């Protein structure tokens, strides 16, 4: 039974919070990956977008660990702060993605539906992470990281090729950042809940 001794210490355990966060981050990345692949197959073939997408994510100013060693050396507080920073930095672009994706010519429902689902689930994951951070660091994490997105005008460009590239780049970055978040959360869960012995 939930809360056997009434409201005393009646809360979702940290382990359960992490389990739910990891299940959500895994789901968000799977959706982001499918959405990117669908868009790439349908709108980007032969346009060489990948060469222009290099080094162009709005979150690249957030220095994140790029291999296992770096990720294991970073303090969990800083890794949590990075995850929060990346998640927060995607709120605004995801909101606009939902409305702008509908303007793409013959955008299939599956892309539209995924954009809506990812925007919703990203907010839900952010709510969960705030709960986890509040549990681990009641005083908060100190300097909040955030990277502003200024890509809306490029999603509304008249020239189709430029506009499609803007979408391609946004979905490429979403796939990348959602994978980072998923990977870091799985690492944090093993470290904080299972003493690095998953």
């Amino acid at each position: 039974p939930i809360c056997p001794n009434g409201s005393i210490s009646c809360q979702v355990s940290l382990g359960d919070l992490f389990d739910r966060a990891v299940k959500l981050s895994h789901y968000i990345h799977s959706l982001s990956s499918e959405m990117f692949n669908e868009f790439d197959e349908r709108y980007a073939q032969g346009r060489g977008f990948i060469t222009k997408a290099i080094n162009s994510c709005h979150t690249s100013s957030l220095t994140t660990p790029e291999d296992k060693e770096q990720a294991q050396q970073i303090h969990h507080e800083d890794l949590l702060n990075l995850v929060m920073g990346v998640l927060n930095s995607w709120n605004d672009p995801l909101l606009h993605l939902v409305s702008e994706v509908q303007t793409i010519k013959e955008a299939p429902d599956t892309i539209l539906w995924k954009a809506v689902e990812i925007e919703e689930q990203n907010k839900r994951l952010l709510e969960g992470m705030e709960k986890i951070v509040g549990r681990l660091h009641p005083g908060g994490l100190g300097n909040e990281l955030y990277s502003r997105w200024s890509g809306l005008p490029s999603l509304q460009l008249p020239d189709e090729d430029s506009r499609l590239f803007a979408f391609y780049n946004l979905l490429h970055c979403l796939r990348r950042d959602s994978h980072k978040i998923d990977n870091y959360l799985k690492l944090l869960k093993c470290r904080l809940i299972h003493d690095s012995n998953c």
Partner: protein
Amino acid sequence: GQPPGKPELIKCRSPEKETFSCWWKPVSDGGLPTNYTLFYNNEGEESFYECPDYTTAGPNSCYFDKKHTSLWTIYNITIKATNEMGSNISEPHYVDVTYIVQPNPPVNLSLALNKHTDGKLYLLMNWSSPPLADVRSGWLTLEYELRLKPEEGEEWETIFVGQRTKYKVFSLIPGEKYIAQVRCKSDHGEWSKWSSESYIHLPKEFRLKD
């Protein structure tokens, strides 16, 4: 007249881990019109809120839509019954949405007799996930359980099959008429109801091994 009896919250349920509803048992009201209010608060919060929607889930119920449903907190829920003589409050009922997920039953359960390449006959059971859940397969991981018995038989044979949506059954009695059902559950939640029954009449010469 009397003040109302103590109300009791019967059950809370979420079909897809996105929304949830709770139902309570009306009290013995001694003939006086009784009014019910549901209050809830989340762990660590002082303030209480009132039920956002008393109608969607039917009489004596409260429906929490997506905006009011959180996976990250435990809800402390109480019901207050009031009539002109006074009021009465239920015991607090604690709810963690992940643990009250009870999907709708699986659908399209089909039974077919198949022959293995090496001649052996077996029963192939096939089914689909419940409509609401199949759209978000990555979000709601469903596991299934089958049960099977001869029509006249008393005892069901129950088989847990994990995330599969088809299953081969070998150990069957030739000439028998079988009833089969399937149900599902999300990782921490409750089993759904059993699906509607499916039937198959095995031919007499249905050998297990030629």
